[in-house]
């Protein structure tokens, strides 16, 4: 099967998952009603309202957050030439979360715009720190070094987040659920700037895809071919911060999607970034949609935080990967 056909079938699967996400919840809404909700919306029908407000916003958020995280992971893996790079593992999620908590508790900012900016600052700070630490000392950027740097930074920011929450015990309950990753409904109007940011980031990444292939060939080859590696690297970093930051501002800290989805797509599709990035976006959206759908029904009437779901299912996958991977040594 050519990559194009595979991408199309992934798109179809995504559509099916969307429908599933719209149908599943506290009550099962059958397919004809979902169709009717979009074509002939009846303001008096509960199911129609649910589909067009609550469930639609959740579905859209899951798609964009999943796509952003997966593409951010792919970009990071290309940027650092490290197969273990991802927003979660490198402390970027933790940094963004910490800064959001910091600004919302110290400065009492609670608008989505404020969250977006604090998430960007946090993601940027964490990314820079990991880069600095990972590059310390002599020797090449071995996978081990930067993973450890990332883990240290992630632990640092979680410690600071915990510190803030212990001091400000009032906000603990609210923030806790969100920190674990939550896609609970946000009105589309308030989430709009965040979604816009994610869309822009995704578009930018797709545009850069060709350049990424060149960069991956190696430093000398790329410069030899006339690519301005410094500029490309900078653009990629900005995109990563944009994507990861908006994902965290929308849904809290969700891990493992940025790490595992690029691997799965690389294996199943192609390592050419022009196919890889769209593939990551699609598969990331699918994975998060399924995780969210499951988290909604597992312990009705309460909900599992979706970050917990991705960790519980993603970590064994990751362990399997680590066991098999001799090529990381």
């Amino acid at each position: 099967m050519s990559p194009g056909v595979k991408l199309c079938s992934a798109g179809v699967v995504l559509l099916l998952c969307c429908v599933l996400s719209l149908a599943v919840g506290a009550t099962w809404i059958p397919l004809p009603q979902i169709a009717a909700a979009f074509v002939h919306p009846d303001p008096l029908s509960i199911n129609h309202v649910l589909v067009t407000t609550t469930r639609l916003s959740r579905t859209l958020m899951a798609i964009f957050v999943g796509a952003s995280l997966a593409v951010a992971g792919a970009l990071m893996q290309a940027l650092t030439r490290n197969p273990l790079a991802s927003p979660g593992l490198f402390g970027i999620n933790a940094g963004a979360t910490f800064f959001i908590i910091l600004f919302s508790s110290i400065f009492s900012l609670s608008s989505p715009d404020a969250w977006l900016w604090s998430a960007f600052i946090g993601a940027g700070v964490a990314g820079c720190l990991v880069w600095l630490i990972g590059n310390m000392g002599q020797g090449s950027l071995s996978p081990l070094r930067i993973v450890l740097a990332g883990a240290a930074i992630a632990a640092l920011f979680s410690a600071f987040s915990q510190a803030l929450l212990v001091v400000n015990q009032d906000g603990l309950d609210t923030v806790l659920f969100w920190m674990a990753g939550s896609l609970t409904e946000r009105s589309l109007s308030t989430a709009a700037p965040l979604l816009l940011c994610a869309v822009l980031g995704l578009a930018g990444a797709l545009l850069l895809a060709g350049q990424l292939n060149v960069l991956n060939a190696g430093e000398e080859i790329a410069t030899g071919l006339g690519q301005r590696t410094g500029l490309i690297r900078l653009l990629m970093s900005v995109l990563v911060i944009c994507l990861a930051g908006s994902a965290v501002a929308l849904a809290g800290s969700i891990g493992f999607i940025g790490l595992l989805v690029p691997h799965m797509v690389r294996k199943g599709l192609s390592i050419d970034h022009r196919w890889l990035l769209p593939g990551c976006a699609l598969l990331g959206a699918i994975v998060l949609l399924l995780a969210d759908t499951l988290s909604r029904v597992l312990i009705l009437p309460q909900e599992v935080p979706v970050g917990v779901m991705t960790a519980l299912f993603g970590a064994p996958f990751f362990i399997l990967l680590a066991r098999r991977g001799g090529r990381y040594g």
Partner: protein
Amino acid sequence: MRLSLGALALRFSAPAWAEAGAAPLRVITLFQGATDCAVMLGVTPCGVVDSWSEKPTYRYLRAALEQVPHVGLETQPSLEDIALLKPDLIVASHFRHERIFPLLKQIAPVLMLEEVFEFKKTLAMMGAALHQQQRADEILNRWQQRVAQLCQQLQQTFAGRWPPTVSILDIREDHIRSYLPASFPGSVLTELGFNWSDSSREASGVSIKLTSKESLAVVNADIFFVFLRAQNAAVQRNYESLVQHPLWKQMRAPQQGQVWQVDGVAWSLSGGMLGANLMLDDVARVAAAQVAS
């Protein structure tokens, strides 16, 4: 007079430290319910812990506790502050202070209560320890009378629909909590004779957390007692989006106009007798409004 008080104290198997005819005890209360009960008994503690909201003291207690120093948080009181105040009695809770009990014991005798929200037990035991047994009895009797009276009033007001089911909803910034019969407000409402929905009766624990508006149907009941956790914009917004949601409008209480806003501090944070009485005030107000409408 002093002798009779002492005799009363002895009759209720007073603990070892209670001497007949002792001077007013310096007492430090280490949880909200104890502070509340102390004030109700007419005893001003010589040290209290911070409140959960409306810091550092709840508004309804501020007048009584004006000059009283604070000894830190309920979860982590400052032991040095406590020691320096040289109290005669410390009132603590096993639930919160089990770990520091050996240290507290060395500072002063400790009255250790099991939980933090059993207000009647707290009142009775504190009454015994503070030589205010009579007063405690009076308060408890008055409570019984008030409950019986309110119960009758409610039965008359609701007539055929008695007993209606209730839900207690705590609105927070991004989710809602529904309090179950085992909780502090739940136990008071049960005493008044209200009924609970099947799902509330079957659920275990003190509260359930509803993060998605889709699960609202779980709290469906005839009457809603609602309070906002904090007076900030985010909670307001959440409440507004809640009442406009079609699933909310479909439930019995909103349809019958039986959604009542009550005082969150008394209903969920106080854990004491004064707070319980304030709850009764709120319920009485609701009953009166029923008659009016």
